[in-house]
């Protein structure tokens, strides 16, 4: 085990021990801060309900993520090809993007109801924006000399896109995809908190109303574990796809 990993693990363990000790020694009431052991115990106690809720949130996040990533990528490729349209559209995209996505959540609920659809739309919206902006940045940041070289060999705009721009943009696209994983879970949970009958966001909202703060922490723990898992999966994919990094 290398030193950095050992120190990292040490930091994590130290934090947990400190947390547990402070809560126990200062007798912090659980509604302010429960000890980690209490959170784990509660999580285990209500595991079946949390798993159901987590599965629902994960489903919304993954579905929205897939749709958003595909749309963002296709849109970025289209705009990379059409320069005049891009110059017109991009500033407007930036303006729309300057409003935090959370502000659009009430609209999505009103339009698409309190079922899974409104969450999927919201996740697709934020993932789409993130992937679009990252991918477009990567697609446009190619060496003009390389473009000229491919052109001289008779490559059309599509050929340049496929053989040069996409491989060059891959690292930027993967960064967008990685950043989006955590955001997709957060947005799914936020939208669930505002209105739904299922999912982790709903569990948190309900537990807050019942002043059951251990269950809030348990839901946060499950949500964090799921996002951490998704984040690790996309990072592993990134190392595979961008193998030359």
């Amino acid at each position, binding site marked *: 085990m290398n030193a950095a990993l050992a120190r990292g693990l040490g930091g994590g363990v130290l934090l947990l021990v400190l947390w547990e000790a402070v809560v126990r020694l200062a007798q912090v009431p659980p509604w302010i801060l429960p000890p980690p052991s209490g959170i784990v115990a509660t999580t285990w106690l209500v595991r079946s309900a949390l798993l159901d809720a987590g599965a629902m949130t994960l489903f919304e996040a993954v579905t929205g993520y897939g749709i958003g990533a595909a749309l963002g990528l296709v849109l970025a490729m289209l705009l990379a090809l059409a320069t005049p349209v891009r110059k*017109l559209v991009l500033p407007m995209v930036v303006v729309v993007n*300057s409003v*935090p996505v959370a502000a659009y959540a009430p609209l999505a609920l*009103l339009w698409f109801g309190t079922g899974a659809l409104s969450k999927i739309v919201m996740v697709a919206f934020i993932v789409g924006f993130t992937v679009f902006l990252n991918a477009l940045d990567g697609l446009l940041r190619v060496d003009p000399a390389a473009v000229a070289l491919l052109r001289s060999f008779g490559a059309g705009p599509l050929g340049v896109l496929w053989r040069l721009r996409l491989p060059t943009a891959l690292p930027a696209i993967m960064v967008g995809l990685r950043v989006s994983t955590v955001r997709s879970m957060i947005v799914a949970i936020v939208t669930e908190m505002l*209105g739904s009958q299922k999912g982790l966001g709903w569990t948190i909202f309900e537990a807050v109303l019942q002043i059951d703060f251990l269950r809030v922490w348990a839901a*946060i723990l499950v949500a*964090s574990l799921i996002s*951490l898992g998704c984040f690790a999966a996309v990072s592993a994919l990134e190392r595979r796809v961008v193998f030359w990094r």
Partner: protein
Amino acid sequence: MALLRLAVPLLLLAALWEGAVALLHISPFYLPPLRQVLGSIYAFGPAYAQAFLVTLGEATVGFVAGALVGVVSAAAFHHARWLRDMLFPLFIASQTVPVIAFGAIVVLWFGNTLLAKAAIAFYLTFFPVTVNALAGVEAVDPRQVALLRSFGASRRDIWWKLLLPSALPRIFTALRLSAGLALAGAIVGEWFGASIGVGAMLLAALFNEQVVAMWAAILAAAAVGGTIFGVVALVEARLVFWRDEL
């Protein structure tokens, strides 16, 4: 010139909005005409002004605190390798926690005060700043550090005269991203029982199913975001005056 670059997309978007509603007969349930939304803001001017100021204050406090903590952490991580190994993984893990879920707990800790929303805004802001500031500091050529040292520069001199200025462009990249995140934190923080602010307005519009009020609140949110972003851009133009040469 900068004003023109800002005004053109705004006017285009406004024209697109009005035009689409009129030509495509979009139901006002989805998109009410822009002049109706603006009229509603005008009619309740003082209420919107107050919400704007309250949310701006919450986001700004969290944003400034996040920026300071981010730069200080980067400095500490740069100077003490062991500290970085120990804390940086925790920083990363902290960002996979859906902070919004903490909203209720943070409000419990701080009460329904400005501090509660600022705390959430802070949580979302400090990480991107830390990462970018650290990357900026690490990218400095060690030979430049060695040169300054050979002239007898102290650690403090090296930090203020070389490391921090070199990292500034990257720090501002993170700050521009964080401006939006801080606003998101403030808005969501207001959903846990606040009565004043852009987020509270959004929630009230949702409960009353008032689409016009919802769009008005979204425009107010855009105004807050635009204000913070604009100030950051202005400060950046002042501090990083060599940016265009990069």
